[in-house]
């Protein structure tokens, strides 16, 4: 309305309870990066137990064991008691806590908030020429509800029953009877609510607030990716919310939706009504969680597409087929979920159906990846830091995708199910894949958000360290898994087949710690560049899309003139000026 601009909001309104999508995007991104780091620290502790079972965890083990002293404050004592023994080594229950919370935090508090809440919020409205999201207040609410969910998850570590222990999948009946799960469920309900608010906002914004001339097929691929992702979040998350409510009832109201009759716990038959069905949870969980993997990957593909188009100085090859593939992918992702359940004794017809849909869904992914690879053909590539990350994404995502095919075939899955092979497969998609793409996005859009470029030298160090050590962490897992080592295993050396490949586990662990060290240049770069980075102009990458045609950093309301779009998103090296580019926007003064 015409009354609410041209005034100076106070610090709190401007940076804390802001309704500006750019501030909210940065809040999301920073929070998510912190959670990613935290989730990674949990994993570094676990990796120590795996590499050196039953030894004292260096530094942290001693510190936590110290807090076991009954005189220490209650909260710290709770934390330590749920994780370590008095000798400072990780307890089996503690291992389960770390594993479950690593998975949950990485997926729901790290990657999705960074990719959708962070990049989506910051970049998408700029790229479509909108002044803000369609519902700015809802946008703010979405962030705060997300933060509340994250805090609930964190607080659960400090409560007497500890954090959740049942994996990010929370399969009942185990999850219903193990401690810590209630907080996990409450946290999840908050996170789901937040992402529902966000997805409504994204969809309305993309449909309604595109600039004049910006037809759907002139949208940057990143916007398309966010659009499809928003639909996935909108329609796939509610069933998990329902399932979460049912599990919460099982825990706090003594119902037995997921509890079979006659379940014996600690040598006693559980006093519940029974007749519940544990598989119901699995159906509802995977009804979300398969689409969720596309939520993890689509924004990453969007970022990579932007960076590749920009650094090859060419239009994307097969832009339209990429868009159609994305839509098809989103659609199909709702009818493949039971490929996670081949081992539950489903009938042959069902298993054939889900094997078929799984094979079909791999086709559009391959199309997108192929289009991106072909886009490189015959271009003179600018090897900028974001481009390095984007390029490394391509083969690593390919490895992740291809190793998934055997898991989608029931016969091969009998051998591979629930082994480290699965862990290797999906981490290639989400860690060397998505994470590398997200780093590309950070290096790419950092100058727009802050007005300064990140340091190239540190960027190279970060890139090569991450690239090498991510592979060192995850490549051994395929071999471990094929040797039959189960996932979620506290100590594989207790088994002959596990002990035989223990050296691979050590390699993977050392990889993880080196990976941690490789992040140091990034952390320094991220903060130091705020003050010491080279000043960036409005369009430092000479890019075409709308976010580069506004001042850096963009003002409140984003554009100084009403944007009008005159061409497609990637008009690099147009015939009339082979060394140049045509920005999508002309100023309509």
């Amino acid at each position, binding site marked *: 309305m015409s009354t609410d601009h041209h005034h100076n909001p106070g610090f709190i309104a401007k940076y804390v309870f802001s309704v500006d999508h750019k501030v909210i995007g940065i809040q999301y991104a920073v929070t998510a990066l912190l959670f990613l780091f935290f989730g990674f620290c949990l994993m570094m502790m676990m990796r120590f137990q795996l590499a050196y079972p039953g030894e004292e965890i260096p530094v942290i083990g001693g510190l936590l064991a110290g807090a076991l002293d009954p005189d220490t404050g209650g909260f710290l004592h709770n934390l330590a008691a749920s994780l370590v023994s008095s000798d400072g080594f990780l307890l089996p229950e503690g291992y389960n806590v770390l594993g479950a919370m690593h998975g949950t935090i990485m997926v729901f508090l790290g990657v999705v908030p960074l990719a959708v809440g962070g990049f989506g919020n910051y970049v998408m409205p700029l790229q479509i020429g909108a002044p803000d999201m369609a519902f700015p207040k809802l946008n703010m609410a979405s962030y705060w509800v997300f933060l509340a969910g994250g805090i609930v998850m964190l607080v659960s570590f400090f409560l007497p029953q500890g954090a959740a222990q049942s994996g990010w999948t929370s399969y009942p009946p185990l999850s219903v009877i193990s401690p810590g799960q209630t907080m996990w469920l409450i946290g999840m309900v908050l996170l789901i609510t937040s992402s529902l608010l966000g997805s409504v906002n994204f969809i309305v914004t993309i*449909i309604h607030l595109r600039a004049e001339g910006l037809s759907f097929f002139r949208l940057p691929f990143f916007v398309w990716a966010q659009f499809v992702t928003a639909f996935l979040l909108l329609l796939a998350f509610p069933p998990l919310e329902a399932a979460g409510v049912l599990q919460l009832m099982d825990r706090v109201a003594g119902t037995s939706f997921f509890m079979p009759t006659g379940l014996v716990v600690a040598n006693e038959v559980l006093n519940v009504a029974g007749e519940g069905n544990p598989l119901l949870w699995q159906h509802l969980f995977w009804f979300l969680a398969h689409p969720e993997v596309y939520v993890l990957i689509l924004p990453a593909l969007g970022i990579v597409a932007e960076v590749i188009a920009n650094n090859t100085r060419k239009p994307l090859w097969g832009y339209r087929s990429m868009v159609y593939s994305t839509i098809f992918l989103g659609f199909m992702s709702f009818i493949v979920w039971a490929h996670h359940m081949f081992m539950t004794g489903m009938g042959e017809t069902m298993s054939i159906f889900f094997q078929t849909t799984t094979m079909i869904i791999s086709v559009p992914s391959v199309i997108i990846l192929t289009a991106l690879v072909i886009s490189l053909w015959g271009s003179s590539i600018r090897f900028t830091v974001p481009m390095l990350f984007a390029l490394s994404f391509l083969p690593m995502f390919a490895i992740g995708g291809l190793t998934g095919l055997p898991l989608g075939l029931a016969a091969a899955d009998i051998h591979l199910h629930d082994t480290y092979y699965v862990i290797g497969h999906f981490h290639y998609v989400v860690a060397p894949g998505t994470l590398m793409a997200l780093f590309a996005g950070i290096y790419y859009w950092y100058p727009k958000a802050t007005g300064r470029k990140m340091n190239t030298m540190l960027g190279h160090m970060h890139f090569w360290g991450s690239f090498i050590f991510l592979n060192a962490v995850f490549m051994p897992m395929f071999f471990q898994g094929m040797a039959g080592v189960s996932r979620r295993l506290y100590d594989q050396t207790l088994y002959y087949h596990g002990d035989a490949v223990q050296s691979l586990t050590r390699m993977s662990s050392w990889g993880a710690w080196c990976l941690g060290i490789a992040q140091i240049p990034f952390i320094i770069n991220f903060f130091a560049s705020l003050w010491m980075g080279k000043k960036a102009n409005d369009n430092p990458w000479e890019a075409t899309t709308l976010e580069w045609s506004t001042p850096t950093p963009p003002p409140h309301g984003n554009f100084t003139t009403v944007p009008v779009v005159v061409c497609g998103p990637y008009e690099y090296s147009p015939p009339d000026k082979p060394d140049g580019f045509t920005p999508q926007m002309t100023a309509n003064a």
Partner: protein
Amino acid sequence: MSVAEIKYIDKPHPITGLTNGKLGIWLFLASEVMLFGALFSSLILLRVGSSDWPHGKNILDVPLATLNTIILITSSVTMVMAWASLKMDRFDKFKLYMGATIALSCAFLVIKFFEYSPKFSHYEAFLKPAAVSKYEDHLTGKASISGHIEKQTDDEIVFKPDTPKGDHGADHGAEHDGHAEHAEITIDRADIHRLTSFGPWHSNFLGIYFTMTGLHGLHIIGGIVVNAWLLFPGSVMFRKERERFEGRVECAGLYWHFVDLVWIFLFPTLYLL
């Protein structure tokens, strides 16, 4: 026009023909369809897998629920009338109808309370298989007796059983005429396998009943909050930005009708089948 202005908050978008709010509320309702859909799906799955799913009408209070159905449908009508009154420029009638909607929704919740509360003092004792024959004359379920607890000690419960109803009590029904006094009986605690009130923990039927109607009730409360806001503090917008206010009322209405619609399906599935 300022560049910083968000468009289509009061006027519809030229191509979609909708305001942001209306598109947004429909998307939100789409997600609600999936939320309640998942619960209905769970209900079906649990029911099909159950060996002894009760008839809703034997356990639940159908007259009260019927009354509630009527109330909720009426509130939907008053809601749509409130919107229509605004369109016809009758702000006074808008206030009247909106007030009626809120009053009816509160009545719904009050009735819900009276429907819920007796469940928690009504008990069922599931007997151990060996003890079933001992209480043969008083069984209300396959191997259980439901009723009210009169007195309990450490090893005995004095129980006032219900009149057997429905399938199991077809033969008793004729004699007792549905209202006959049932004598108190004493049940040995040692004969009881599980003693439970008719709360959500009683069985999956009551569990899903409480979960679904409870979640629906939360939606009702949400609707009351929104409608009350539109009736009192929010209504100042009517004078300043009339179209935008009409849009808000329309969106609140869409939400409210959806809540009604969910109930229309909940009612037969839980109470009548």
